[in-house]
């Protein structure tokens, strides 16, 4: 078995500890690891080996899911650097950001009430672009500027936007059914 359970998720996959990440490299490393530790490879092995296989395969999944998702990846990097993004406690956000949130919600609500699927699609691509812009921002903050408090705030903003995305998805789904 090639790794220890305590290992940092980036080290686990042999990746540099940065926000900017080569997705193909991550996918490849994850698959290689599962190919050697997955419980399907240990069906005929002894109980201890099967248990260890399950633990390692579980950890590989956890690491992969964490690094694959930009928000979780950013939060993980911050925690590794001793910065708690304070998701639970710090909900104070800049006013202009909060106003923007309200606008998103109103726009979604209006479009759903008007059953305007095209507008929902448009909102969805706008949100996609906004997320992309913020991922770039957070990459700069973590990888280049090492501005961790700034990155923590961007992570909190992204979590708000993630909720907007969920609401948008639900609104689209309601329109389909």
């Amino acid at each position, binding site marked *: 078995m090639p790794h220890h359970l305590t290992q940092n998720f980036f080290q686990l996959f042999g990746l540099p500890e940065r926000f900017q990440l080569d997705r193909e490299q991550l996918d490849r490393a994850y698959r290689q690891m599962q190919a050697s530790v997955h419980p399907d490879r240990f069906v*005929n092995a002894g109980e201890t080996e099967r248990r260890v296989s399950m633990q390692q395969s579980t950890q590989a999944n956890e690491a992969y899911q964490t690094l694959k998702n930009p928000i979780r990846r950013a939060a993980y990097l911050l925690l590794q650097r001793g910065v708690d993004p304070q998701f639970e406690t710090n909900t104070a956000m800049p006013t202009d950001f909060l106003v923007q949130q309200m606008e998103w919600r109103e726009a979604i609500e209006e479009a759903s009430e008007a059953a305007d699927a095209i507008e929902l699609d448009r909102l969805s691509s706008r949100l996609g672009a906004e997320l992309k812009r913020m991922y770039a921002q957070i990459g700069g903050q973590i990888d280049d500027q090492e501005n961790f408090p700034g990155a923590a705030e961007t992570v909190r903003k992204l979590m708000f936007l993630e909720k907007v995305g969920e609401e948008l998805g639900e609104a689209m789904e309601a329109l389909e059914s």
Partner: protein
Amino acid sequence: MALLQISEPGESTAPHQHRLAVGIDLGTTNSLVATVRNGIAVVLNDHEGHSLLPSVVRYLRSGGAQVGYPAQAEQARDPRNTIVSVKRFMGRGLKDVAYIENCPYDFVDAPGMLKIRTPAGVKSPVEVSAEILKTLRALAEQALIGNAGGELVGAVVTVPAYFDDAQRQATKDAARLAGLNVLRLLNEPTAAAIAYGLDNAAEGVYAIYDLGGGTFDISILRLSRGVFEVMATNGDAALGGDDFDHRLYCWVVEKAGLSLLSPEDTSVLLTKSREAKEFLSAHVEARITATLSTGGVVDLKVRQADFWDMTRNLVAKTLAPTRKALRDAGLAIDEVKGVVMVGGATRMPHVQQAVGELFRQAPLNNLDPDKVVALGAAMQANVLAGNRPSGDEWLLLDVIPLSLGIETMGGLVEKIVPRNSTIPVARAQEFTTFKDGQRAMSLHVVQGDRDLVTDCRSLARFELRGIPPMAAGGARIRVTFQVDADGLLSVSAREATSGVESSVTVKPSYGLTDDQITQMLKDSYEHARDDVHARALREQQVEAERMIEATESALREDADLLSEEERQAVCAEIATLKQLAEGGDHRAIKLQIDRVNRATEPFATRRMDRSVTRALAGRSVESIGS
């Protein structure tokens, strides 16, 4: 000179010896067993050449049972003791099964899972399924081992992807009861993806649309370079071809003006309806004729168009979960390269048409929809048994279909493992005690995607005892969920400060109707609004209880810090809060909580002062002592 033979784990110690393993599709209507022979997956036929074994078990007065065709032949004559579609009852209580009133069986509602009284004794669905599996096992052993010797090392048994923990556990129990070594429980659409993907060297994103006799699954997979990765799955554990039969049967009963049918006549008409349904897949009109036990004669013609009309909403019920799965996978319709059709019910042209319209492409039908699941299971069994050389295996990454969580205060669900998590997966969450000096905590494990416990399936309850007495909120109880590669859950709980531990392998309890399961994911949107209200109310009620508890406890300890007037004012606000917490207005409760907060503020400050004083006093005593 003898050479030491070193084998990697998972590989056979004798690489030249083929290890006999089979794949079993335990279906609602038919079951099959397949194996890989000379590198090719084949379905094993019985001695009469049948590849499908009807999933029918008839219990006899002698105590024995007939399985398959002989049982099916007696179905119309002996419907009460001839059990069909037992898969619908797996891991289910009496209240959970739709149209149970149409079943002619003598049900016994047992805790956990219903049972059926038969001339051979009371049987659980696990036992009935085990009869089917035993027959398949005998068939496989005869075909594979015969006079050659050797033994069956194990089986991969398939389950609907949307099966919950209780249904999976029941299936595994049935296989064990049949004397099979279960190498893995494999999701049916994933098995189909293996068979399809390997046969066609497919790469890219594929949707597997699997409409069987009693269950519907949709799985979205990414196939690339020997990896089968399930991106999302969804479905309906109580929707299948049987429901189409039932619609047509109801139509027949109505058209013919029938009422109060005997179990025998019901059985005959259901069979005739099924035959007509199958006929209508290739013809524009079918004739349904039957002579009833009353002497009455049924003779009706049903047009294909009428049949499509009466079952249109059943088809539509498959499309909502399909869209949901795509959304969970983060995919647009045009990113799906192909749609593989699985299950006998996908032979119906209007199902094909609806799926084609949704995906904007013709569905793929180049594999036998009845056999593809068993063939894929056989291929996987062959790999798991270690018959393929190392490096030449493929990797399967599957997911859990429904979120797993725990009941928290106020009947709310705290989700711990979200649906579509790749398995194996483990997640831990910390909980705390609610009352001062609380010594035990009961944990209620649920599965589903709604906010309230009552809308999810109850899987297990267990208790963590021996928590050392602490102030409310003082204990830290870490609850860990581990889902293994079969999709089965085990839960453990540990109090962090004392190390007190408790764990269970989840054995299902019950409490959810199939209707609820059916609706769960869909409803989690439809009722999102209701849920928001219900959730807000529960949260405020919990907050109110906490506040009442804390204030009353403070009053017991430090009432002397308040004047009689102040004390009465606090008590009055608490009384009002108690009253409002019984009601349904979460805003009013919240406002009153704020009032109690304000009313108790001076009290809290004085208490804080007192405790600081006491703490300081304690320290001075200590320092004197040292």
